């Protein structure tokens, strides 16, 4: 993580706290709090909203740093890697729960444009799929933009579940992550679709109905 990113994170984290005191805080008040000049903040962010949104972006940056420090991460299963992504993000959200509770839906989940947080989250999902060699052929074909969008939607649901979770140490959310990632892994590792495709292919080439699709033999197999 370079100096500039560290500074941006420092500013955005301070902004999340200011936001809780006054949702319409000024850049000057934030600069005063951080003992820096307003121009330093304007050099890095165009406006207040971008500072707050960067907090979410920074979570993924910090996730990457934390994950790089995990010994044996490459041996994790797909479910474990997905759980690590979801739980690490949640752990960081927990530190600023009130801010997340007030802004996640408006800034991220219901945003009418694709946010940096979402883009980077999808990128992490892509890395997880790309590195996994145990996936079935059909799963690796289907794991693209559409699947990632579906998982991001689930993740928004997970955040909302977590925000309502009153269990000690958000254990219910942990259980949900565990079940959800176990299911995603099961779907990705399952070769049922591969086998089904194999069978369909066999049936297609060996079925009498095949004649209707045989363009080289226009008269059909029966004639």
């Amino acid at each position: 993580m370079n100096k500039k990113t560290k500074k941006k994170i420092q500013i955005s984290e301070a902004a999340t706290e200011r936001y809780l005191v006054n949702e319409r805080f000024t850049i000057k008040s934030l600069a005063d709090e951080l003992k820096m000049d307003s121009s330093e903040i304007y050099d890095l962010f165009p406006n207040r909203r971008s500072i707050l949104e960067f907090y979410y972006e920074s979570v993924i940056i910090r996730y990457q740093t934390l994950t790089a420090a995990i010994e044996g991460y490459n041996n994790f299963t797909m479910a474990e890697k997905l759980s690590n992504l979801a739980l690490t993000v949640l752990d960081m959200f927990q530190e600023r729960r009130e801010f997340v509770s007030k802004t996640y839906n408006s800034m991220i989940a219901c945003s009418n444009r694709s946010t940096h947080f979402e883009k980077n989250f999808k990128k992490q999902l892509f890395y997880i799929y790309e590195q996994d060699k145990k996936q079935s052929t059909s799963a690796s074909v289907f794991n693209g933009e559409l699947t990632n969008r579906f998982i991001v939607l689930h993740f928004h649901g997970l955040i909302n579940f977590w925000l309502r979770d009153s269990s000690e140490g958000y254990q219910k959310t942990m259980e949900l992550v565990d079940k959800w990632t176990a299911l995603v892994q099961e779907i990705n590792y399952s070769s049922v679709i591969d086998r089904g495709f194999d069978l369909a292919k066999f049936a297609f080439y060996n079925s009498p109905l095949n004649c209707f699709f045989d363009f080289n033999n226009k008269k059909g197999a029966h004639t």
Partner: protein
Amino acid sequence: MSDFPSSKFNRGRIFAKTGLKVGTNYAKHYIKSLNSSNSSDKSDLHKETAEQVFSELTKLRGTALKIGQAFSVDQGFLPDEFAEVMTQAQYKVPPINRSLVRSIIKQELGQYPEMIFKSFNSEAIAAASIGQVHEATLKDGRKVAVKIQYPGVRDTIASDLSLAKSLFKRLMSNNGDLDEYFEEIRNTLLLETDYIHEGKSIDRFHKRFTNERIITPEWIPEFSTGRVLTMTYIEGVHLGDFLESNPTQEARNHYGQLLWDFFHDQVEDHEEIHADTHPGNFFLTDDGRLGVIDFGCVKSFPEEFFQDYLQLLPTHLRKDEPEIKKLYTRLGVLRGDPETNKKEMQYYQFCLNYGTAFAMPYKEDRFDFGNPDYKELIRDHTKNAPFGNEPRGNKYFIYSTRAHLGLYHFLMKIKAEIDTKRSREIVNEVIK
């Protein structure tokens, strides 16, 4: 790395599926034996079925697995193959997702394991019903065991016990009052899921017992919370691995004697007893000590019960039948005069036979637990237990028997010949 079923529906479904599997296996075996003159080996069937039951129960973890564990110290209700496979439930359950472990540590200790510890092995070294254990090194260089509680385990206690209770009610011809027994189990399980409570027990046992014969872990409170427990690491082998190394009779007697003495030292103190006497909780160390772990189930019994319970041993050995009847009546096993009531006579006969067999090790100064006839004797009496009728006996029997019977089970497995002189003196001293 499977997920953890916490809803009552899911856990009930697994219970039902397990029952169905067992039924199907035995039905298949029965049909096969009707059509074939060769009677196939029933031992294979028991083992296969036990492995299936174990695989299903490990999915449940929590309370349901605890019930499974109870069978592993059984002395005759189940075939040997079942008890053997269920013994694995003590420490060989599939571990949970490694990312969950990290997150639980972050939640409980404030930082991820790699930031707190000098090293942390993300692969669990043991996984049991309530939590799993990881090996780690503190920044000061001390090697530790970090026990992590599975998420949602406390929530499953109530639902699993209510499932188990309805199952028991169907098995018993006369339901009687099961509530007090289940209440006792529930309270104990709730304490077992409180790792601060366990940490304090570790502390007391460490101060009382760590010596040249016994080693217990040291609690590290600064790295412990209600759901994460850190303690110093105990090196050693489990009973199963020890037996596989083909040990000498001398070594068998040595470790057996350590456990026998450990149990009776607790009786002598009569303050609290490590009531989870199953092989998974003991390590046999290279320097000839007995390592004792898992202090989640430590029980203190009311003085009155404790006295009556211990009185049973010399009273059975004296064959003092009027006193035996009095004791079993006080302990809630007999509810009438066996001479005039047929059902009470059934209970009395069982108590007389089983109690006498159980007291045998206290008869003379040495006792050979490796004698196969003794194991058979205990098994035969257990098989004739009239437990199908109704629940009987003081609720404290659940854990006193678990500790005492667990001790016998361990000694029979290790085939140790024990010097019982001091323990006999302790029992006589305590009941004075």
